[in-house]
């Protein structure tokens, strides 16, 4: 099966620039679940940063032609620009420990030439349970079934 043409070099380059500058971040949310094999659909790739004021983040953005839009009273912090259009900024995760704690248990995934940290599926489930919004309740059975499948496949191989 041919890979669909989305999340191409443009997006990978941004991740690569972040890693090159040692910006501490991890992929979270449903895109993290999808990377691990959960059949979840999402529109964006959520990135959880340890420190949004890390100068490396702005440098990486500049390198790929993206910009950082700081939060206002009514809007969250955002990225703008074609190369970063798929990425969303996450500041906190419901029901989880702090960034460092979660980072220590995160998984390593290779995306193209870059290795990135990805929040574990069990922690994504914990976060969805804690957030408990309608959309979280809808996706939880899918994530739980995926987690059970991944466990079984792991023990089977």
């Amino acid at each position, binding site marked *: 099966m041919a890979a669909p043409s989305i999340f191409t070099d443009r997006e990978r380059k941004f991740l690569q620039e972040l890693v090159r500058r040692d910006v501490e971040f991890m992929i979270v949310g449903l895109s993290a679940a999808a990377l691990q094999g959960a059949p979840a659909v999402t529109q964006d*790739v959520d990135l959880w940063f340890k420190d949004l004021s890390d100068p490396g983040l702005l440098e990486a953005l500049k390198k790929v032609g993206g910009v950082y839009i700081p939060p206002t009273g009514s809007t969250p912090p955002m990225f703008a620009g074609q190369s970063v259009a798929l990425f969303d900024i996450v500041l906190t995760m419901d029901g989880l420990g702090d960034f460092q704690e979660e980072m220590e248990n995160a998984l390593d995934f290779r995306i193209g030439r870059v290795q990135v940290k990805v929040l574990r599926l069990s922690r994504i489930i914990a976060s969805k349970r804690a957030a408990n919004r309608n959309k979280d309740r809808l996706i939880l059975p*899918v994530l739980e079934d995926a987690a059970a499948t991944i466990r079984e496949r792991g023990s089977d191989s």
Partner: protein
Amino acid sequence: MLEQAKVSRTAYYSLTRKESVLPGSVRAIADQLSVAPSKILIEAEAAERRAQALLRIAKKVIRKNPEASFENVWHTLMLLEEPPINRLRRSLLRGRALDLH
């Protein structure tokens, strides 16, 4: 031997007269791909064996988690056969397609 295999002499001699006993469709595909027909058959067999192995895992998951949806389990197993980047791409592609409707 023919008797033990329950194959009639007529059927046997009919086969020996044929240029190939493989279905024409298999030979046509192999010809188009410029590969030996046996290569297609071997790959098809491997794919079938893999599918059977995955089905066994799916059944095991459902047995241990009766409330789990077979569809979710099967789709997860299919996605795990792909590299992570492709899993993410599929997720984004579907998510963005849904947003258009």
